């Protein structure tokens, strides 16, 4: 991120803010969609987060920390948006329109649809930590700093979220390919 741009926005330059918003919009939207799962909510959250950035950017003392600070504002807006629209309303049509990809390197049935279903069953806290960790590649310490919580809490949320995702994958896999024991029991 261009720090000069951030400094200009801090000085109230609206043109600079437009350039900043245009550059930031896709990445903020990607995180918002990963957390909220609904295109309309993600658009609303991204726009609200950008407005919050404009409003509060003078409080950002170190322009080099702009990205992490912007994500913190976005996560806060996503929580508010999720309260306003509590239902996970992921667009199934959009998700299932694409042909499933070939099996991954592990040879398991972990395709995108199963992961989408797993994500839909997660709580807001768990979706947030997964997005920050796996989409943005933050370390647990960075996730903790972004959320204002402890590393231990982040760890526990990550564990629970990953296990729930694994449950979604493994239960679906069992539905498709019953084990020998179960086949035996069905006879």
């Amino acid at each position, binding site marked *: 991120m261009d720090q000069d741009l951030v400094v200009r926005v801090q000085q109230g330059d609206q043109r600079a803010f437009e350039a900043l918003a245009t550059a930031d919009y896709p990445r903020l939207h990607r995180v918002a969609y*990963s957390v909220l799962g609904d295109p309309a909510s993600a658009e609303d959250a*991204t726009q609200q987060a950008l407005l919050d950035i404009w409003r509060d950017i*003078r409080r950002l003392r170190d322009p080099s920390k702009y990205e992490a600070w912007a994500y913190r504002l976005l996560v806060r807006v996503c929580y508010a948006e999720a309260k306003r629209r509590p239902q996970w309303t992921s667009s199934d049509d959009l998700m299932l329109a694409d042909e499933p990809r070939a099996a991954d390197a592990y040879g398991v049935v972990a395709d995108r649809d199963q992961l989408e279903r797993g994500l839909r069953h997660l709580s807001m806290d768990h979706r947030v930590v997964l997005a920050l960790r796996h989409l943005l590649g933050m370390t647990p310490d960075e996730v903790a700093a972004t959320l204002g919580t402890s590393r*231990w809490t982040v760890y526990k949320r990550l564990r629970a979220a990953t296990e729930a995702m694994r449950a979604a994958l493994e239960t679906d896999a069992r539905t498709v390919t019953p084990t020998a024991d179960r086949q035996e029991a069905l006879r």
Partner: protein
Amino acid sequence: MNDEQMQSLLDTWYREREIPRPKVQTGVASVMANVPQTRQRGRWWPLPAFHRKTKAKPPTTNDMTKYEPSPIPATNGHAPTVIGRTQTMFSPAKTIIAGALVFGLSAAFLVAQPFDRLGGGVPGAEEGADPAAPVEVTATFRDIECEGYDSSDVVGRVVRIYGDTCTVDNEWSDPRLEGTETYIDNHVVFADSRLTIGHYVHNIVTDDGAWRMRPQFRIESSGLKNFSGTWVLDGEGAYEGLSVVLAKDELDSVPLTGYIISTDLLPPPPEEGSTK
């Protein structure tokens, strides 16, 4: 699928996941339409932030008379010319005065200490103090390292994880609790209802003994968060007869707080079938 494969799968999926294309132009236009009515907030602290100044650059010229003090000169085999102080800073008079001051202050602090605490600062820890008095303790969380778990299985839409083991680093206010802390958790994850129920222990092994926690249930769900309740750790070895009762914070973001107390003084559980 093991942990490493799951992490890798999630990394790949999140990065390659196809999501609806954002409406950047209309979105930014909508934001910009609201910008003129949105006043930028100033800093709550009006003065500029204090930053550490960078060190002044050493002189780069050879004219050493221009700058004092000088950097260490390159000797090139010759004895360096010392510019500045050439006499010792040691002064016997100042040393005696400083020593007297330190002695006087120490004596003043000793005299000022309450007489009932002269026998030992920590009640219950030393002879002469009231052994029944609870000693307040706090622990501040520093770090956690997790090794993985012993086993897991899936039954229907439920995942069971057994022996999820982590080493925890807490900073304790009482040295008797400083040691190797291990957190072991068995839990079930109900995938459909976003619910996790766990049964865990948190043990501390020190050089002189150990503190064993009475197993504790925990519950996590989207509505409930994590109310871990109260921990009770019973002492072994040098701590036989003592227990630690701690209040566990919901978010682990504030220190654990509680008391070391004589185990005999802990009330027993109500008798089964009792109505009073």
